């Protein structure tokens, strides 16, 4: 019983936001109930066209950044993890330790020199600063996650394949990756959600309106309306939350396992 009430209090603001996005503006503050007495879907059309470009463009930009980051993390982190977990080479312990240390480096130390670097090579106002680093295995979290997963797999698998004449690449592609689907799924889901929600780096690198991602556009929308049309603002907020919600529904299993084993957010 307490659980139900508490859960309701937790999700009430979210439900209220959804309800408010279909209420006439005048009713939003007068009526805090969840079931709108009068529905009005015009907020969605208004919000969609309120900024200099249709909101769909911002969603598309977000999707491009997310897909790039996702692909990059899956490829580069699984490669690095394979080397750390399965191959012997000099300095392995040292480099692994170094990789773990980078987990502790606050993003603020990197963001200024990276910005300087990317602006020197004229990558500001492109998606490249948001995507290319992901292809260079800079998200050490996921390397760690996959190393843990690979280590849990029996080495007999590799040995047997080796006897059958398989090379390292074949073992990586044909044996490890297919059975590591849970770890890859966890990586993909977290990369999706974190990148979709990410704000700071997108705010810094994407200043041209036609390149802005959904969170940045949403933020500008707050300034543009200065709180006059809450309904449309909520409507667009709801739209940006929907992808995260869908990924959450589909990937729950992996999410719960992922945080339970590595303590990620």
């Amino acid at each position, binding site marked *: 019983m307490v659980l139900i009430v508490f859960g309701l209090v937790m999700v009430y603001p979210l439900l209220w936001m959804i309800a408010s996005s279909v209420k006439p503006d005048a009713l939003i503050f007068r009526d805090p109930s969840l079931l709108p007495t009068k529905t009005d879907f015009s907020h969605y059309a208004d919000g969609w066209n309120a900024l200099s470009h249709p909101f769909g463009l911002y969603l598309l930009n977000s999707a491009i950044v997310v897909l790039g980051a996702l692909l990059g993390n899956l490829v580069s982190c699984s490669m690095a993890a394979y080397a750390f977990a399965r191959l012997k080479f000099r300095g392995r312990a040292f480099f692994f330790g170094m990789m773990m240390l980078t987990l502790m480096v606050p993003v603020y130390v990197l963001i200024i020199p990276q910005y*300087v*670097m990317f602006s020197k090579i004229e990558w500001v106002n492109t998606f490249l600063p948001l995507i290319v680093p992901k292809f260079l295995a800079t998200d050490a979290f996921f390397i760690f996650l996959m190393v843990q997963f690979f280590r849990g797999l029996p080495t007999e698998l590799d040995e047997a394949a080796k006897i059958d004449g398989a090379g*390292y690449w074949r073992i990586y592609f044909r044996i490890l990756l297919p059975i590591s689907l849970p770890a890859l799924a966890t990586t993909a889901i977290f990369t999706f959600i974190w990148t979709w929600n990410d704000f700071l780096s997108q705010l810094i690198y994407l200043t041209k309106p036609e390149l802005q991602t959904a969170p940045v556009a949403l933020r500008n929308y707050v300034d543009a309306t200065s709180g006059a049309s809450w309904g449309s603002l909520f409507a667009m907020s709801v739209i940006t939350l929907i992808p995260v919600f869908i990924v959450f529904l589909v990937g729950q299993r992996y999410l719960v396992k992922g945080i339970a084993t590595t303590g990620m957010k």
Partner: protein
Amino acid sequence: MLRRPLSRAARKEERTAWVFLLPWFVGMAGVTLGPMIASLYFSMTDYNLLSSPQWVGFENYSKMLDDPRLRQSLSVTFVYVALSVPLLLAVALALAMVLNRGIKGLAFYRSVYYLPSLLGASVAVGILWRQVFGTEGLVNKFLGLFGVQGPGWISNPDTALYSLVVLHVWTFGSSMVIFLAGLRQIPEQYYEAAALDGAGRLHQFRHVTLPLLTPIIFFNLVLQVISSFQSFTQAFVVSGGTGGPSDSTLFYSLYLYDEGFGRLHMGYASAMAWLLVVIVGALTAINFYFSKRWVFYGDGK
């Protein structure tokens, strides 16, 4: 150490490893280590991105000592961390305990409580929060039911920070899931043995659950302190990018962003970033130091 020459197979394995690690090496050098060194250099210069950096030695660091806004941002951030992290962990632990009793619909409740921690960092929720804690927002509507006229939580410098604390506590779900996983690991026999010895529920919690859970509480604590000290998005969105009203929500990260990207004081912002490294490192070290007194690893490990 004696190095035996590597066999042909071992050499091949080593070569393959370098190839697999190639992207990581490039990223390490170009996107992580290189920029860190550059940041250290920038922190000792005057640099506005447009003209080349001017060497000033430790001037940026000494300037930090008597910068009232920096002091304000530190105190705001410390208050935020000191209030929200213990609260968040307490709520997460309490709910994990309740859910662990094997109630019906566990998966459902877990999802409901977990969802906010995924959405909590988004701009959309920041916007929602501005509303919920606004003068005419949901919180005041609720207080109105009891005849209490609440203040405009966000627009009042005395309360703005607390609305952000509440937002952070609202995202307790991920810590709760970690606690749940930890509670599952505690063998049922321990409770049976304790019950046989006549221990009540409270006693069992105090002497069985809590000690065995301390490593996980510690783990959550370290993670939460590090991440909440660096919170940015919500303070930015709720305060409209200013850290206001009257700098009452000027998080350290927000001030750093403002100095670096708002005023193009790249040198000063770099120095601030290194102070952040020192603070986060020190907080983590303090956590580890005190952990010896209360974290129980079993078998005297």
